[in-house]
């Protein structure tokens, strides 16, 4: 709940003051999205030099699968972090939803039914998190560590060391189908969701209220904003997106193991924070998250083309996270010192 925010109340006041004193030019150049976009282009160029196979429409289309599923959840996670909460159970929700779909497929349920199963499991899990956080008023970081282990635990109880692998043929469309030329269903869904989330967060009353709560929950309550209800809705939304991501991922892999999407929660949070959403809540944009998704997808795909093993890539992702956050702080501090 508010712990993560008081945690660095002193950090925020310190870093926020010089920010406002900057000149308009430095403010524009310092805009997170512009900076990140530059990084994305640099990585894109570096990739095309590093590997001759990179600049190929189908190859780039393949590269999008690296991040589309994670990014769908990252949109909802961004709103949740802006409001001042976090959900670490998203990957576990994928595992549970995927397991449920596997079990349903075993019973002979068709593709539309499977999608319904996956999405409802996501919604139920989101509702559980939302209830614990907004009704019982518990800190979301611990609650979702608990539910993460609970949800994935249920998958393990169901599956053990087995796997579900028999999915109907038409179910494959969600993860393997193409809408138009090289544009996969997942990529189109990603773009559509990005637009919807962008509108909801930046152009509706609801989105405004999310920012208000994230900046000052106390003031939000006094302004008559239904804080708990909004938080509940956001957890529900995160559950829903996890369910949708589970449909895509399960359909793409064509099988379910309890260890599916292991560790994704950290990658998704990294994506959100890299996208310029303040981990302390109250600030961030969907555009930033979209660019961050591309950056992470390009980095991992580029390194993949260079035969860099996945775990070494994770070093780059970790460094990317720390450096992108540390750099503006270091720059600001140097500037602050030199003006003194």
């Amino acid at each position, binding site marked *: 709940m508010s*712990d*993560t925010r*008081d*945690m*660095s*109340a*002193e*950090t925020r006041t*310190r*870093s926020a003051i010089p920010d406002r004193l900057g000149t308009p030019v430095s403010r524009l150049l310092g805009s997170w999205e512009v900076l990140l976009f530059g990084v994305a282009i640099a990585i894109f160029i570096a990739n095309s030099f590093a590997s001759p196979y990179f600049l190929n429409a189908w190859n780039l289309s393949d590269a999008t699968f690296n991040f589309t599923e994670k990014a769908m959840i990252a949109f909802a996670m961004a709103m949740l972090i802006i409001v001042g909460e976090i959900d670490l159970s998203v990957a576990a929700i994928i595992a549970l939803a995927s397991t449920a779909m596997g079990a349903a497929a075993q019973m002979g349920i068709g593709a539309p039914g499977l999608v319904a199963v996956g999405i409802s499991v996501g919604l139920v899990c989101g509702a559980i998190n939302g209830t*614990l956080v907004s009704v*019982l*008023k*518990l*800190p979301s*970081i*611990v*609650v979702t*560590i*608990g*539910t*993460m*282990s*609970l*949800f*994935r*635990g*249920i998958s*393990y*109880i169901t599956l*053990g060391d087995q796997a579900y692998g028999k999915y109907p043929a038409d179910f494959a469309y969600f993860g393997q189908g193409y809408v138009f030329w090289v544009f996969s269903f997942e990529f189109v869904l990603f773009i559509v969701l990005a637009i919807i989330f962008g509108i909801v967060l930046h152009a509706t009353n609801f989105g405004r209220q999310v920012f208000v709560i994230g900046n000052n929950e106390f003031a939000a309550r006094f302004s008559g904003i239904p804080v708990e209800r909004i938080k509940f809705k956001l957890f529900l939304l995160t559950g829903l997106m996890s369910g949708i991501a589970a449909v895509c991922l399960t359909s793409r892999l064509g099988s379910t193991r*309890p260890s599916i999407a292991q560790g994704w929660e*950290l990658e998704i*949070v*990294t994506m959100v*924070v890299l996208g310029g959403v303040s*981990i*302390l809540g109250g600030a961030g944009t969907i555009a930033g998250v979209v660019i961050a998704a591309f950056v992470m997808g390009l980095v991992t795909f580029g390194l993949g083309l260079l035969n860099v*093993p996945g*775990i*070494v*890539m*994770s*070093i780059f*992702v*970790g*460094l990317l*996270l*720390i450096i992108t*956050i*540390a750099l503006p*702080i*270091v720059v600001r501090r140097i500037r602050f010192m030199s003006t003194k």
Partner: protein
Amino acid sequence: MKKLMKHRELLLVGIIAIMVAGFATRAPGFATPGNLANIFNDTSILIILALGQMTVILTKSIDLSVAANLAFTGMAVAMMDAAYPGMPLALLVILAIGIGAALGAINGMLVWWLRIPPIVVTLGTLTIYRGMAFVLSGGAWVNSHQMTPGFLNFPRLAVLGMPLLSWMAIAIVLMMWVVLTRTQFGRATYASGGNPTAAVYAGIDIGRTRFFAFTLSGALAGLAGYLWVSRYAVAYVDVAAGFELDTVAACVIGGISIAGGIGTVAGAVLGALFLGVIKNALPVIGISSFAQMAISGIVIVAAVVFNARAERKAGRIILRDRGAKEVSA
């Protein structure tokens, strides 16, 4: 507040005792002293890590990189032992603590100097440290036959009927109790988590306190790295994957407030033992070990609900005056 805490820990002791008694009815021999000592030994590493995690949590931070630190340090000392069998064990243990402390200090620096939120820092270093373990080893395993017998046997040496591993856990519990309740650093730890504003007015450098807390947590993770690798006689990249959450869980179960400033050494130890008893009991009473994850999930959520109740009550009547006194003292 103290009364409440005492009450809380007694409650936890009671719950653990009831659990042990319950399991004993299903599996005779579960409650024998020998088996209980085994469970303690089995939980030793978790206890050590939970105490480090607790120190960090007390300062209103969180260290998600402990398990990755453990994996890297464990791999590093195992490879050194395999490459230079002549190296004295004491040196290796000191190196393990040193490497762990250095990795912890990196977290601490980022939190102290750059004021990046701890959860972001350790989320990043979690992947970096584990990645480094892979780079270091090239993905290869260090197996038991490559390690020297001295390196492997040390935690198993029986002293006064208990393995050295258990004794080390006991020593660290005592050390942490002294550090947290009898030193200036300990007081600063509670103060900077309990009421950061008041702590600053009282002349406590919160950043520096957090830095030392992270370094301490790292040093304990480093030691645990050696203990883990020698106990299980194998080092590989995915050692202790996800264990950071167990350490957080042990703290939460033990009544350490995730908001900082509240918690005792006894609580963290009992929280770890609670998880240890469950983990050891499941196979004995014939529940698949696959169920363990779901059970600990339920336990964590239940513990959080319980903590929130206790803290809320305390926060209204007692804690405010008490907290002010503690800071000014």
